[in-house]
């Protein structure tokens, strides 16, 4: 081995990148060449000081946080997928509309209301949009709507039935203010929208899946009620039934 070869190869030796054969060659060369031996020692020395020192940098906490925020969190991931689903959903309803030979204005409006209800539900899930009045007490939430909307929404505590009252909020659907009463079951939020019936009463409760959400609609005492949630349809149906029972009880009682 020549000194020129050794000069480069000795780096592979100190980096433990040489097989035993080549390592022996270098060491044999260094044993009889003082210059290469001192080079080897010098670079081992340098390497030790590099490894011993703390030459890395620590990522600032703000960077770590901002990356963490940018990578979808479990909650965000599902919401984003749902938003993607929105496009597909409206395509599908358009296709459904086309396959029916006639489109009546009311059904059209129906679709729009469903779409707006889902938008309102999604908006409410964004930080700090869920409630205007935050209370688990129905006697706090109900009076809050006084003077804010021209109806007295039924605010019913269903905690005993497994649906926790979270609060209330004013929202807009179909260009009109509606009362939104917010419930929670485990991690699922239920938005119950309450609007004036205006002759659009539904003969019977209807549960449907729109754009990945379960929606239950029904009419009661001149009010139209619409519950939106990512809760499964059985439990949303249970919510509707429990709510109806309690609503009727408040009226008779």
């Amino acid at each position, binding site marked *: 081995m020549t000194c020129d070869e050794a*000069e*480069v*190869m000795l*780096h*592979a030796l100190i*980096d433990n*990148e040489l097989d035993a054969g080549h390592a022996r060659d270098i060491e044999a060369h260094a044993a009889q060449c003082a*210059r290469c031996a*001192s*080079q080897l*020692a*010098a*670079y081992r*020395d*340098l*390497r030790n*000081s*590099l*490894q011993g*020192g*703390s*030459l*890395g*940098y*620590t*990522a*600032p906490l*703000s*960077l*770590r946080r*901002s*990356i*963490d925020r*940018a*990578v*979808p*969190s*479990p909650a965000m*991931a*599902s919401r*984003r*997928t*749902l938003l*993607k*689903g929105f496009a*597909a*959903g409206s395509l*599908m309803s358009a296709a459904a509309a086309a396959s029916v030979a006639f489109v009546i204005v009311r059904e059209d409006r129906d679709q729009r209301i469903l779409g707006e209800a889902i938008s309102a539900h999604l908006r409410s899930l964004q930080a700090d949009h869920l409630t205007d009045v935050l209370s688990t007490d129905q006697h706090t939430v109900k009076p809050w709507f006084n003077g804010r909307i021209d109806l007295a929404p039924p605010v019913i505590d269903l905690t005993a039935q497994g649906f926790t009252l979270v609060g209330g909020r004013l929202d807009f659907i179909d260009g009109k203010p509606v009362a939104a009463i917010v419930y929670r079951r485990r991690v699922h939020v239920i938005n119950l929208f309450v609007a004036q019936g205006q002759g659009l009463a539904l003969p019977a409760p209807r549960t449907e*899946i729109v*754009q*990945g959400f379960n929606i239950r609609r029904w009419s009661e005492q001149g009010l139209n009620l619409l519950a939106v949630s*990512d809760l499964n349809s059985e439990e949303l149906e249970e919510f509707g039934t429990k709510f109806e029972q309690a609503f009727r009880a408040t009226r008779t009682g």
Partner: protein
Amino acid sequence: MAYEGGGDRGKAERFRSAALPYLDDVYTLARYLLRNTADAQDAAQECYLRAFRHFETFRGGPIKPWLLAILRNVCRAEYARRGALAGILDSLDDAKETAEGLWDEAGHSPETETLQKLDSEAMQRLITQLPDAFREAIVLREINDLSYREIADITGAPVGTVMSRLARARAMLRAAWLAEGNRS
């Protein structure tokens, strides 16, 4: 329509647990390659966004070299932007020429001379002053702790080139260190 979130959610979680532990490594390389804090932070952020976007293409094995390869691409884009901005391309060819001169200089420096103790900050500064290709090689080897093979894959250079770049980088670093000692 049913939820399709399961896959995405799983992907995000797998990505977090696999990639986030190497943020310091990614940031360190970005700091050395770009030589300033703000650009390094931007590059690291961009690296993780790209990595997440292309996480499906990651074929297993150690994830650190994969992340650093992405970071290197981000940094090269930044070099190009800076080059276009300043009209000076900080290219590897320039670095080679500079290195040639320093290499000779280092060859003639007395090997017996002992190196003074330097604090990490001074050492970081000396490494930062090395030309691009050599700085990159020595940071990947000594600080990111990658093998020659991994460095070769990341930089697209043959293993032999990696070895000679490292040899030069160390020679330059040693020369700069000795000069530092003589100055003080």
